[in-house]
């Protein structure tokens, strides 16, 4: 159904001319209908802008592999002008130019009576106009684009040229067969090969401009055949598939992060609401997420999901694709009722809710921040390594792992949990997105059900979680004992090793805590605090189930619990501190006023 959906999308959302593609042009071959104005070759690039590749135009384009195959009305320097460079074979350049001129003549002959521009272009080539052109001072290469204009209007915009181009593509790409099209189900002229490709920049991992449907080796085809002989697809559908997919991959409905092996494009049939659109964003609005979750809890989404299962025209489609040399690899394809995907999104955002150290309550993590948090933490700059960074050590498939789990509501691959644990241990850094990933991995465990609250659960007694809380509390005692004047905290020293086995770190912390508490007790103003902190430490120890008190080496799930216990306790302590400060300020306000 992927191709059918893409064709439907193309028909509804695109107005692109058939067999056209957007391309940048470096040069303009300007011709004029008035005889006194000389043809000239002008640069379309601003000399001060070194990154510019020239303005983009929608131009006739059809798949060109190794053979000589001119595009009509605008093409490479070697085709339009017959000029080569150091990397081209002069004989081939000559063939390209001759083929281009023949194609222009064929169009001009079909349209010279009605289209004055066609006559001007034909006469230019027939009168040896290229030989009389002044070679530009700026350097050129054989594969830079040249746009032909007549009286400053590109000839590719002429209706006669567009009509002729459709006939030309049908002549080139058709095997002369008609039959049932697999996509539209109608009897129509069938394509021998798909008449177009996607731009390389749109498909991560593509070595060349890739094609979605391509049978270019004997072993790929049924009965050892090349081409689409046994995969009947008509011209219109073949073109619409490319147009639709190009439009999607170039739209705002695409998730494509640098250094990932795939891009995900999505679209909806029907009318998705604003909450859904925001939730699909890589940086969602927190209010929309909250509304989506509350709609799930009050049963609105569940009821809609049941209705959608019976019958609903509103659907969500997404395709995740990557490149394999010049072929497109479909990595995932989802075509489900829209309401079902909305429920999956609401569950996802609920699973990634965690408490923050910097604000009260729970906060959702957007997709962008989750992917970013799988990379290396730069402790000097206090930020994650950029998504484009070579040394960030992000798995190249983490984007699609997360997306697939989100949209399908499926378990998270265990590799994500292992990676995040490794990164926390290596960086010694745990924040909201990483805690969210850990909680997500537990909530979406592939083989067992793990309950994990978004914030501190004071009744939880399993040893890894309480050990994490104790670790955080030891850090808290040290902080108070030193008045926050620390070069390296207890956590800085021990967190990495404690993730795998917290027992040695906690034993070391207990000894240190005696000194820290003694220091606090010696000072009159902190004696009460020392008592409270000591009491709290004893309470935490009492929470641990005496039958399973020793931790030893922790499994990955237990490591995640340890880190979440640590994160929850720290967030809770800071929240309590904020509350105390607010109460204090509220209590002192009347006195200040008096």
């Amino acid at each position, binding site marked *: 159904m992927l191709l059918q959906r893409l064709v439907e999308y193309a028909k509804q959302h695109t107005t692109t001319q058939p067999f056209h593609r957007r391309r940048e042009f470096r040069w303009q071959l300007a011709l004029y209908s008035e005889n006194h104005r000389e043809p000239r070759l002008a640069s379309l690039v601003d000399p001060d802008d070194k990154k510019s590749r020239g303005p983009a135009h929608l131009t006739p384009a059809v798949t060109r592999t190794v053979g000589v195959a001119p595009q009509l009305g605008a093409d490479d320097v070697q085709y339009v002008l017959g000029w080569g460079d150091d990397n081209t074979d002069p004989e081939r350049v000559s063939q390209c130019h001759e083929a281009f001129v023949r194609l222009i003549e064929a169009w001009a002959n079909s349209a010279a009576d009605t289209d004055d521009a066609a006559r001007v272009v034909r006469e230019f080539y027939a009168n040896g106009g290229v030989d009389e052109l002044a070679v530009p001072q700026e350097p050129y290469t054989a594969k830079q684009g040249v746009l032909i204009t007549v009286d400053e209007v590109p000839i590719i915009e002429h209706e006669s040229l567009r009509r002729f181009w459709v006939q030309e593509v049908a002549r080139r790409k058709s095997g002369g067969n008609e*039959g*049932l099209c*697999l996509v539209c189900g109608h*009897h129509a002229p069938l394509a021998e090969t798909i008449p177009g490709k996607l731009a390389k920049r749109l498909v991560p991992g593509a070595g060349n401009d890739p094609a979605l449907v391509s049978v270019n*080796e004997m072993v790929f085809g*049924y009965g050892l*055949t090349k081409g689409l002989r046994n995969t009947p697809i008509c011209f219109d559908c073949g073109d619409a598939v490319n147009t639709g997919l190009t439009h999607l991959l170039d739209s705002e409905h695409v998730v494509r992060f640098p250094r990932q092996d795939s891009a995900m494009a999505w679209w909806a049939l029907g009318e998705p609401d604003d909450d859904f659109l925001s939730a699909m964003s890589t940086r969602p609005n927190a209010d929309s997420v909250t509304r989506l979750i509350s709609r799930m809890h009050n049963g609105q989404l569940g009821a809609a999901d049941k209705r959608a299962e019976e019958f609903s025209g509103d659907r969500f489609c997404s395709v995740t694709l990557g490149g*394999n040399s010049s072929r497109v690899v*479909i990595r*995932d394809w989802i075509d489900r009722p829209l309401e079902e995907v909305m429920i999956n999104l609401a569950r996802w955002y609920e699973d990634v809710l965690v408490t923050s150290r910097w604000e009260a309550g729970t906060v959702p993590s957007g997709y962008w921040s989750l992917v970013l948090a799988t990379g290396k933490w730069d402790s000097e700059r206090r930020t994650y390594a950029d998504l484009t960074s070579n040394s960030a050590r992000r798995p190249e498939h983490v984007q699609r792992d997360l997306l697939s789990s989100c949209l399908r509501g499926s378990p998270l691959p265990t590799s994500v949990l292992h990676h995040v644990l490794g990164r926390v241990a290596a960086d010694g850094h745990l924040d909201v997105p990483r805690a969210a990933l850990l909680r997500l991995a537990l909530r979406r465990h592939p083989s067992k059900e793990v309950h994990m609250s978004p914030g501190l659960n004071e009744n939880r007694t399993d040893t890894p979680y309480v050990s994490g809380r104790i670790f955080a509390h030891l850090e808290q005692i040290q902080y108070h004992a030193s008045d926050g004047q620390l070069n390296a905290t207890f956590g800085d020293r021990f967190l990495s090793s404690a993730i795998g086995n917290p027992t040695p770190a906690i034993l070391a912390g207990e000894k240190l805590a005696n000194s820290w508490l003694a220091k606090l007790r010696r000072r009159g103003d902190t004696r009460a605090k020392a008592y409270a902190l000591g009491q709290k430490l004893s309470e935490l120890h009492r929470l641990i189930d005496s039958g399973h008190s020793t931790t030893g080496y922790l499994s990955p799930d237990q490591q995640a619990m340890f880190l979440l216990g640590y994160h929850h306790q720290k967030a809770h302590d800071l929240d309590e501190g904020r509350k105390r400060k607010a109460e204090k300020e509220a209590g002192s306000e009347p006195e200040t006023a008096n």
Partner: protein
Amino acid sequence: MNRELPKSPEGAPPLTVQVWGRGALFTRPELKVERVTYPVMTPTAAIGVLEAIFWKPEFGWRPVAIDVLEPIHQFTQKRNETTDLVMLEDAVKHETTVDSPGNRTQRNSICLRDVAYRIHAHVELREHATKPEAAYRDQFRRRVERGQCFHQPYLGTREFSAHFGPADDSEPQPITDDLGIMLHSVHYGEKSPSFSWFTARLESGRMHIPRTGINTDAPVEA
């Protein structure tokens, strides 16, 4: 539930067999290089399973419906394959050597995980059949009961071998979905093979298969 399925010319209900496996790949013809599977077993794959269990030149199999008994889950795999395939006549003449490393190509596949299907099919006698239809049906049932097969059945591709057994009364999955145009059958003639197709739809977990497909070369009636 089987009452709604078409009966044989003798008035018999279709034979049923249940197949299941850890994976399956029923390749879509339009996405067959970097393979993408249909979500449901195709009729040609069902015929392959039935023929693996019981085949005789005296009859052919006509599947009429396929029930989906497990939720549809996908997984992907990437494999090293080769584009260097020796033609049979060259192999006979010992004229060609195989250079797989030199012609290596990596191909991705979206496959199905943990599948189970119930195939409903009729035996269709050919002109030279010597026994009545019921005899072949009984033979098939006995073979299914004993787990006998001519070769291990597979689910779309040989990498995904299938287990089979008598059908139970488990309910199909409550899934309704359009599956697009699906291969109905392959016709081998003197020239290249031709194909017929049908518009597949999963209705409450059951895919009905029409008696004949739409031939590629014939105009389609609206």
